[in-house]
Structure formats: structure tokens, C-alpha cells
């Protein structure tokens, strides 16, 4: 219980570490990394303890001290016959408005606990890994400081008790990603990427801010538990929930790299590879998924997930999985392959949430964190070996030089591809099952898209592995295996990728005592919608395995044995076109950019030039350019031209009339006298006539 009530310590430690590293890091023998590892390590231990405590708490049936705030609602829920286990809430006063006090505090439930564990574990491994990877970097200390802050922010996010706190942490995560992506800011592309990441996220944040506001006025509180309870009970109108859900979806799109705001994510590869691992596996991008899970009653009711067969969330997720997967095919940069793969997998999670498969989504989040981190760190290890390049065309044959990296990378890839019994299989299968069964209706479109992705995932990962590890080495120098401090985390993660899938074995395959443990402990029972849990389907499982295997096989044939439609792009115009479309990321960036920019920038020739030169530029750049151009125009013509000129003109007008009036003063006294007498006469005339 102690751990559950003092969860604030978990994010607090890395936060302190941030300050400490900044303050004294440079003077320490390991440049501050030791503080970071120590604090995050402690956080991990505490998270694990919290997890254990939570399991005990659930086993005890939610007894003991309940959350102080949710008591009233709990009582109501109890009356309705639920066996609800309330979140553990601890708060202190933060600020007050209009006479009401608003608290800040922690809220611990299954979701928080699993996130705490995931985040702190991945972060710890990334910390350790980074000590070698970033060795000798000139901003080594700063790097670790912000790594700590990043972790602290994400840990805060997952235990946030209210929406404001969530918003705060959400933005801090964005800030840290900005700093870390732009770590090597001497090069403009890196700082561009950082800017793009931050600004895109900011766009989504508008959705979050408005969503939070709508929920605040709808529910009258920032308290997440209360909001959820009200939403689940039907205490909020459907319109409010729908609006809130749409706004929050926008936030998810930007943070979790969902279509159409995903374009920042591949660019974010400009940061150091461990940072990419952290961003993609555990912290930044899953924040969106976490947020949906956190406000699930809002989405569930708002999008009518229980009764529809398609909805915004599910569609965005499903569409993103396919988009990500197809784009992953054409990348030449190994990190970009992984980045698009992440987008695709995040799409899975969002889709799962959209079809009502809450547990599947979180489970996939959890398993995905393990093999994704492993893949990224593996890629880092590869690049470490291959002269700091990520271009797969300059790799090849690395299998021989770096066996550990190879092995872990393959394990993680298989997990990702969904080969049983690795972790990815279980979670992915659950998602597909969720789509198949849906709530009252099935989600057929989601199922089809999900299956397509399952096939493609297997295929592109095979391609990546082939290009990297097989064939002949195409790069410079002699590659070498990375040191222990990098491979150990790889092995840990690979191990996790193997085993974590068993945490939520289907009831059909396992005894009750170990089946669906994840669902049992993690899925909230308090203030949570009634969800239909998908049944495990052997048919579907078999089909998905078939898809994965055939994907691997076909890709293998194509690359390793050089069979299949090679040179298709040369021979078929349609295929060439298709390839180009993919290579240009569906022309999405171009769409934002040049359509708007061209309309302002003018001649078509210019536009064609832009088409050629800037197809790869991002949506944010486009919008930014529009803003800049508009700003320029506003500033030059309206601000400096209009308002100002008016003011200046009135001044000039006054001076001009002054100049005119000066002519009265001719200097000749008799004209003055004439003015005096005439003035008297005219005034007298007027007054005598009028009065």
C-alpha cells in the first residue's frame, strides 16, 4: 500500500536527477550518467514494487484505504453491483479558481502500474546503453539530464490524477523530445526535425487543450476518475463526449504519430538512436495511446464503440497501420524503417482501442515496447559498428561481425512480425480477434487492414534484416560487435520480447491461474465501460501466422534468392508509379506544403520547382511557411501600412493645416487689425441675426 500511495517518488527521482545532473554532472567521473542510471534504476525498482503492491491490492479485492476523492462515486458504483477496484488517489492542493481548489496528485491503477514498469524499464536500459553509445559526445551531460527529465515527464504522465497534470506532463514530454531530437543542433536538419516534432505536437496539443476544457466544463472537474465515472455512467451528454473525443483524437494523432500528423516521426530519427528507442518504445509516442486508454469511457461513449462497426479512432488506427507498413518498405535508412514500423504498430494499438479491445491495445503497447526498444537499440548497435551510418545500402553481412546484435534483432523482428510464441504474436492476435468480434458489431474493415499489415510487417522486417545482416558488407572499414554495455540491454529486451507474451495467455490455451493475468490486473473495473472481451480464435491465429510466415517467405525469396518480380518498377509503369508514391510518402507532405504555399508563392514554375525540391518537407514546415508569408504580408501591408499610416497621416494633416493657418500671420499689422475688426463685425452680425 505504501508504494501505491507514494508513487509520486517514482517520477520525482528522475526529476531530481535532472537538476542534479545539470548542476554537478560535469564534475562527476561519468559525466552525470551515474546519477541518471541510479535514479531511473531506483524508479524501476519502485515501479516494480508498485506493481507487486497493485497485484496484492487487486487480490485483496480493492480493500484498504481507497482513493480519497472517488469515494462517493465508488459507493454509487458499488450499489450498482460492480465489484470495482478503485484507483488509489493521493492529492495535495495545487491552485484555486473562483473559490474552488484544484489538487495535484497521483492516481495508481493497473494501467498506471504497467506503464510505470514499462517506462522505467526501457528508460533504464536506454540509460545504460547510452553511456557507451554517446561516449565522448560533447553534450554527454546534458543528454543524460534530459533523458532523466524525459523519463520523469513520462512517469508523471502515467500517474497523473487530473487532466491538467496530464497536459503538463504531455507538454514536458514534447519539450524533452524537442531537446533530445535536436541534440546535435549544429546541423540544421536536426534542429529542423526537432522543431517539426515540437510544432506538430503543438498542433495536436490544441486538441488536447480543448478536449480538456470541454471535459472540465462538462464534468466540472479536472479529475480523471470523476470524468471517467461520469462518462461511463452517462452523466455527460453524448455531444460533449463526442466533441471531447474528437479533440483528444487530434492530440493522439500528433503525439502517437497517427495519420495524418505522423510526418514528424521519421524526421525525429535525427536524434541519437537511444533517444529514438525511448521515444518509440516507451515514452513519447505511446503517450497518445495511453491517453486514449486513460479516457477510455470518454472515447467509448463518444464514438459509440460498442454499437458501431467503424469509428474515427478505429479508422485512424487501421489506416495508419497500412500507411506505416507500406512506407516502411521503401526506406533505405534502417531507422526510418523502424520509425514507419512504429507508426504502423501504434496504428494497431489505436485501432484496437477503436474496436473496443482495450486490453489488447495495452498489452500490445507493453509487448511492443520490449521488441521496439530492442530493434532500435539494435539498429544503434549496427550503426555503431558500421561507421555511424544508418543507410542499409552501406551495410550487409553484419551477421558475421556482430552475432549478439544479429540474434537479438532477429528475435525482436520475429516478435514484431507475430511469430508465435514470441510476444508480438499474442498481443497482435488479440487485436485482430477484437476487430473480428467487435462489441455488438464486428469491425470488418479494421480486420482486413490489420491482416494486410501483419503480412507487410513480416515482409519489410525480412527485407531490413536481409539488407543489414546478410549478403556482403558494403560499407567502409571493418565492423565490430558492440561492447557489453550495449549488448546486455539488447539481450534483456530480446528476452522480454520472448516472454512477456505469456502474461496474457488466452483462456483456451492456459489454465485459469495463469490465463488473462494481464487483463485481470490491468484492466480497470472502476469507472470503466462494459467491454466485450474477444475470444481467442484458432482460425484467426492460424491465419495470422500464415500471413506472417508467407510474408517472410516471399520477402526472403525476393531478396535472398532473387526470385519474384524483380525490376518490376522498371518494367511496369504502374509499379513504378506505385513505388514513387511510396517513396514520396504518399505525397502527403507535398499536399500540405505546395497546395497552400503555391497559392501564395505564385507562378506554376515556382511550384514545379517546389515540387521537386521540397516534396520531402513536412506539413509543419508548410503551415509554418504559410504563416510566415501571411505574417509578412500582414505586417508589411496592414500593420506598417494601414494602422500606422493612419496615425502618421493625421499627424501630417495637423502639421499641414498648421502651415496653412500660418498664412494668416502675414506680419502686417493692418491686416491683423482688419482681422480684428472683421472678426468683431462678423461675430456681431452672426450673433445679432441668430440670437
Amino acid at each position, binding site marked *: 500500500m505504501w508504494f501505491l500511495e507514494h508513487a509520486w517518488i517514482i517520477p520525482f527521482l528522475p526529476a531530481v536527477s535532472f537538476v542534479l545532473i545539470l548542476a554537478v554532472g560535469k564534475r562527476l567521473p561519468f559525466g552525470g550518467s551515474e546519477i541518471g542510471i541510479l535514479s531511473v534504476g531506483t524508479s524501476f525498482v519502485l515501479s516494480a514494487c508498485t506493481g507487486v503492491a497493485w497485484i496484492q491490492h487487486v487480490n485483496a479485492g480493492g480493500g484498504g484505504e481507497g482513493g480519497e476523492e472517488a469515494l462517493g462515486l465508488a459507493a454509487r458504483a458499488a450499489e450498482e453491483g460492480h465489484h470495482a477496484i478503485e484507483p488509489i488517489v493521493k492529492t495535495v492542493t495545487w491552485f484555486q479558481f473562483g473559490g474552488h481548489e484544484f489538487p495535484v496528485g497521483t492516481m495508481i491503477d493497473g494501467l498506471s502500474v504497467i506503464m510505470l514498469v514499462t517506462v522505467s524499464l526501457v528508460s533504464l536500459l536506454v540509460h545504460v546503453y547510452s553511456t557507451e553509445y554517446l561516449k565522448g559526445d560533447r553534450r554527454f551531460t546534458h543528454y543524460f539530464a534530459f533523458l532523466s527529465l524525459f523519463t520523469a515527464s513520462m512517469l508523471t504522465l502515467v500517474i497523473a490524477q487530473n487532466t491538467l497534470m496530464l497536459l503538463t506532463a504531455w507538454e514536458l514530454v514534447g519539450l524533452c523530445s524537442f531537446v533530445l531530437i535536436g541534440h546535435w543542433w549544429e546541423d540544421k536538419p536536426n534542429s529542423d526535425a526537432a522543431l517539426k516534432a515540437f510544432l506538430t505536437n503543438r498542433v495536436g496539443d490544441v486538441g488536447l487543450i480543448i478536449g480538456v476544457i470541454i471535459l472540465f466544463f462538462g464534468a466540472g472537474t479536472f479529475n480523471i476518475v470523476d470524468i471517467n465515472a461520469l462518462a461511463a455512467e452517462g452523466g455527460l451528454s453524448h455531444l460533449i463526449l463526442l466533441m471531447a473525443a474528437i479533440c483528444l483524437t487530434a492530440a493522439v494523432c500528433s503525439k502517437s504519430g497517427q495519420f495524418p500528423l505522423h510526418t514528424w516521426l521519421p524526421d525525429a530519427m535525427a536524434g541519437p538512436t537511444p533517444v529514438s528507442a525511448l521515444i518509440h518504445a516507451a515514452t513519447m509516442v505511446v503517450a497518445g495511446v495511453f491517453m486514449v486508454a486513460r479516457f477510455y469511457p470518454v472515447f467509448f461513449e463518444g464514438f459509440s464503440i460498442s454499437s458501431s462497426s467503424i469509428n474515427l479512432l478505429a479508422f485512424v488506427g487501421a489506416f495508419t497501420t497500412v500507411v506505416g507498413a507500406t512506407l516502411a518498405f521503401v526506406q533505405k535508412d534502417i531507422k526510418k524503417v523502424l520509425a514507419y514500423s512504429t507508426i504502423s504498430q501504434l496504428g494497431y494499438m489505436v485501432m484496437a482501442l477503436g474496436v473496443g479491445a482495450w486490453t489488447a491495445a495495452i498489452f500490445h503497447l507493453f509487448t511492443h515496447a520490449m521488441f521496439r526498444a530492442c530493434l532500435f537499440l539494435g539498429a544503434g548497435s549496427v550503426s555503431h559498428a558500421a561507421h555511424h551510418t544508418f543507410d542499409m545500402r552501406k551495410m550487409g553481412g553484419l551477421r558475421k561481425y556482430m552475432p549478439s546484435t544479429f540474434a537479438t534483432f532477429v528475435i525482436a523482428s520475429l516478435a514484431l512480425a507475430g511469430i508465435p510464441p514470441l510476444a508480438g504474436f499474442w498481443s497482435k492476435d488479440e487485436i485482430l480477434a477484437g476487430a473480428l468480434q467487435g462489441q455488438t458489431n464486428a469491425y470488418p474493415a479494421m480486420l482486413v487492414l490489420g491482416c494486410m499489415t501483419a503480412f507487410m510487417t513480416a515482409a519489410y522486417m525480412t527485407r531490413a534484416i536481409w539488407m543489414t545482416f546478410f549478403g556482403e558488407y558494403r560499407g567502409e572499414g571493418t565492423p565490430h560487435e558492440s561492447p557489453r554495455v550495449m549488448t546486455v540491454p539488447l539481450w534483456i529486451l530480446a528476452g522480454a520480447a520472448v516472454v512477456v507474451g505469456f502474461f496474457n495467455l488466452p483462456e483456451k490455451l492456459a489454465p485459469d491461474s495463469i490465463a488473462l493475468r494481464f487483463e485481470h490486473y490491468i484492466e480497470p473495473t472502476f469507472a470503466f465501460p462494459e467491454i466485450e472481451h474477444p475470444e481467442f480464435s484458432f482460425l484467426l491465429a492460424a491465419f495470422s501466422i500464415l500471413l506472417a510466415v508467407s510474408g517472410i517467405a516471399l520477402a526472403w525469396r525476393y531478396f535472398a534468392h532473387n526470385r519474384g518480380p524483380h525490376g518490376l518498377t522498371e518494367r511496369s509503369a504502374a509499379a513504378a508509379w506505385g513505388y514513387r508514391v511510396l517513396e514520396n510518402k504518399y505525397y502527403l507532405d507535398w499536399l500540405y506544403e505546395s497546395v497552400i504555399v503555391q497559392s501564395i508563392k505564385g507562378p506554376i514554375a515556382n511550384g514545379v520547382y517546389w515540387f521537386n525540391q521540397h516534396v520531402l518537407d513536412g506539413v509543419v514546415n508548410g503551415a509554418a511557411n504559410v504563416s510566415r508569408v501571411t505574417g509578412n504580408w500582414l505586417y508589411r501591408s496592414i500593420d506598417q501600412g494601414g494602422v500606422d499610416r493612419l496615425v502618421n497621416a493625421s499627424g501630417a494633416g495637423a502639421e499641414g493645416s498648421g502651415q496653412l493657418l500660418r498664412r494668416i500671420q502675414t506680419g502686417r499689422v493692418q491686416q491683423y487689425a*482688419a482681422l480684428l*475688426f472683421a472678426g468683431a*463685425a*462678423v461675430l456681431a452680425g452672426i450673433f*445679432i441675426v441668430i440670437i
Partner: protein
Amino acid sequence: MVAENIAFGLIAAAIVLAALRVVTTRNIVHAALYLIIVLAGVAAQYFLLGAEFIGTAQILIYLGAIVVLFLFGIMLTRAPLTGESSLDNDQRWLAGLVGLLLLAVMSYALIDQFDDQELPADTVQRTSQVADSIFSTYLVPFEVVSVLLLAALVGAIVIARKD
């Protein structure tokens, strides 16, 4: 009564004509001479109104002092004695317009107010009454004027003298 009216008419006509010559003649000395006629005429009108002390003062001060002053002034400034147009400036039309406008306004007001009201028959006021008044009710202005004359005297000397 008729006699008085005839006298008034004659004197008034003389005053107006002389006054017009004062402001139109091309010879400055002539102007001064016409001014004498005007001033004397005005003095005569004062007598007609029964204001004998004022009439006397008018003759003494104006004719005796001021006109002489003017003549000295004319000589000291060596104004050309022969007639020429340079006595006038180029805003005669404006001047005439302003004068006529003023006249119109003033006469309208005067006629509107007093129409054909008669002066009382006996308008004579003794000099002693004036004197009593000056030394009682109007003592302050009297004293002030004495300082005024002193100041004007001292100042005019300083201004006019060569140094």
C-alpha cells in the same frame, strides 16, 4: 428745438465730411487740418448735449495739444507734404468692406434699440457735478489716470529720445 436740430445736422455733416477727408486725403498735413474740423465739431456736439465741461476739455486737449502733437509728429517724420497715393495701402477695399459691415451691424442695433427716443429736454449737467463725481465715486480711476499719465510721459520720453 428745431434750431438745435439744424445745428446738429450742419455740424454732423461737417464732421462726417471732414472725417472722410481725414481718412482719404493724400496730404498728411491736410489730414491733420481736417482732423481739427472733426474735433471741433465733436466739441460743438458736446455743447449741444449740454456737456460744457467736456466740450471745453475737448477743445483744450484735442485742439490745443493733440493736433499740435500730430503736426510735430508729421514734421519729425518728414512725411512728404505733397499729395501722393502712398498714404494708403492696398487693402482699401477690404477696409471699406469691414467699415460698412460694422456700420450696418451697429446702426441696426442702434435703431432697433432706441428707434426714435427723444433726449430729455434739460440735459445740462454742471461742471461741479462732474467734479464731485470724479472725486468721490470715480476717485480710483482718477488716481489711476494720474499714474497713467506719468507713466506715458516717462515712457514716451525714453522711447522717443535719441540715444
